[in-house]
């Protein structure tokens, strides 16, 4: 009888879990990254279809659940000091170039531009903590992916200015981390695929220490490896200013 109760409870839990709507899942994804502030160091390696590689290191700061972000390139020397500030989840972006010592606002239509020749656009870098506001979601199915039970979601951008027509996400049901995301271009063709690995729990927050974005139409690849991550550093708002871009 006890086993029967347990089985029933599990079934009910499973049913309850299965009844999560797409929007609820997006809110859970967003909630994972609801941290006061974050600092990270990372390396980014771009591999061209011909096999050439280019590597960058950078530091990034974020606060208010990634609503405000500042990223600065540290190496190579050719781009050292180049920085960009994203406010309001990337709706407002300023870029700074040390050679000219000028800070310029980036138009919204430029958010789909490749950042430093990588497979990542400003839109990709800004949207990861604001899915619920920017996309409508439909649960396609539940399946195992990379040994994890996942929800498979179809996301449609709510803004027509998005460079994607849709995205398919594989979301881990336990950590609510997106393990894989397929991006489709405006023509409906599969454009690129992001895969996340090496998830570590830092201060209880599941933190991907490795992700890759594969360009499926040209065979290019961008890999990002986190070297250091630190949360809840009480980063002041004064760090997230256009003035701080040049410091």
């Amino acid at each position, binding site marked *: 009888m006890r086993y029967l109760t347990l089985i029933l409870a599990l079934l009910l839990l499973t049913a309850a879990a299965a009844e999560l709507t797409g929007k609820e899942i997006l809110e859970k994804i967003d909630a994972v990254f609801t941290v006061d502030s974050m600092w990270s160091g990372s390396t980014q390696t771009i591999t*061209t279809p011909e096999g050439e590689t280019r590597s960058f290191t950078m530091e990034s700061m974020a606060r208010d659940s990634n609503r405000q972000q500042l990223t600065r390139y540290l190496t190579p020397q*050719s781009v050292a000091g180049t920085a960009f500030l994203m406010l309001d989840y990337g709706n407002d972006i300023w870029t700074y170039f040390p050679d000219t010592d000028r800070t310029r606002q980036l138009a919204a239509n430029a958010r789909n531009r490749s950042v430093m020749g990588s497979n990542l656009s400003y839109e990709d870098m800004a949207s990861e903590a604001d899915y619920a506001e920017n996309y409508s979601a439909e649960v396609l199915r539940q399946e195992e992916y990379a040994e994890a039970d996942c929800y498979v979601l179809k996301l449609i951008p709510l803004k027509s200015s998005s460079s994607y027509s849709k995205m398919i996400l594989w979301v881990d049901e336990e950590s609510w981390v997106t393990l894989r995301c397929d991006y489709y271009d405006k023509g409906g063709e599969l454009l690129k695929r992001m895969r996340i690995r090496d998830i570590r729990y830092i201060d209880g927050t599941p933190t991907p220490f490795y992700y890759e974005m594969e360009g499926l139409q040209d065979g290019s690849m961008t890999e990002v490896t986190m070297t250091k991550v630190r949360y809840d550093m009480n980063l002041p708002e004064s760090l997230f200013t256009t003035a701080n871009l040049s410091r």
Partner: protein
Amino acid sequence: MKRIFSLVLVCLVFLPAGLFADDDLPPIFAEGEGGSSTEEEFDLLTLFGEGLTFVGKLDIWARYYNTDDNEFGNYNEGRFLVTSRSGNTKLELLGIINAYGGYDAQFSPDEFDWRLDRANVSWFTDWLELRLGRQRLAFGSGYMFNPSDLFVQPSMLDPTQDDPSSDALLTTFFLGQISGVNLIAVPGREIADGSYGLRLYTNLAGFDLAGSYYHRGAYTSELDAHFIGFSATGEIVVGDWDGPGIWCEGGLDLPYDPDGDDEVDSTWRASAGMNYTFTENFAATVEYYHDEAGGEEFVDYDWMGLMGGERFVLGRDYLFANLEMDLSALITLSAMSMVNLNDGSLMTGPMLRFNLSDNVEASLGGFLFLGDEETEFGHGEIDLGGGVNIPAFPHMAYLRVQAAF
């Protein structure tokens, strides 16, 4: 026999799996408990770019000029930037070495020169920044033309390169993340010869807005001037469609005679532009420029002012366009053009840029100058004195290598 069978079985089971596994990738979830950020060793002194940094850049242009003698020249530049930041203080030093050769050497009194382009120290808090010393005072947001900037003017051949910096004291009061007040003081050899200004900047409804006022001592040898500048940068948004980025900038010079009652005409200049990113790899920029002090006709052009760096262009109205396409992550094709709308002459410059390594780029390009005989970009000549005339703008092809270390 049992062992061999087991081995074969293992191979049969795991070999195919291995073929499809992501061998080079780390596992989805890291082993162990993960960790705490407090367990990481962080050097707070280097956390936000503190410490000493050095960036060296070499810029080597080998140029061919389509003159009667088919001449070659070269323009070479070395930039050495040292920054040191400690706490709320930052020191910035930028030395620039220029070397000219062949055809390019005749435009410089020396074949080799150097200057300390930046040498300043800044001190900042959450609400205040003071920067004292030689520094760049570049506030405008236009791409090719910055009529609201008094102290820098971009190079026509490369808008990323600007004129020398100014000896100044810049005081900035921050009013939030993207608003503030600049107080600018650029004293001359005598205080009365200096320029002193106030600039307000903010962001309203998505637009970066700025307004400035300067008093310009020694505007000319006889005149002082008031200067009023403005700039606005934003984008056109219709519903949820993000349209082109747009900007406009302007400056109004109001000269006056400090010793007399002579009436002096004011002049104004302004630019307006837009850019649009069509795809992830293709963007276009268009900019219009009007300078009331420019010449409407060829006979009015101030060639000596252009050669002396007092003027950036000769005419009154210009249309500039730039197309840029990333052919791959490492190769970019661009084409810039500028039309003098007063005389119809055209400057156009295609360029192919190769990223050869993390720190080396090579560019192959050229400039064509097209127009009638008596036009700015046509085949006019500059009188260098002593009976020496040179073509103002001969067609040019170049190979440029930029390296950082």
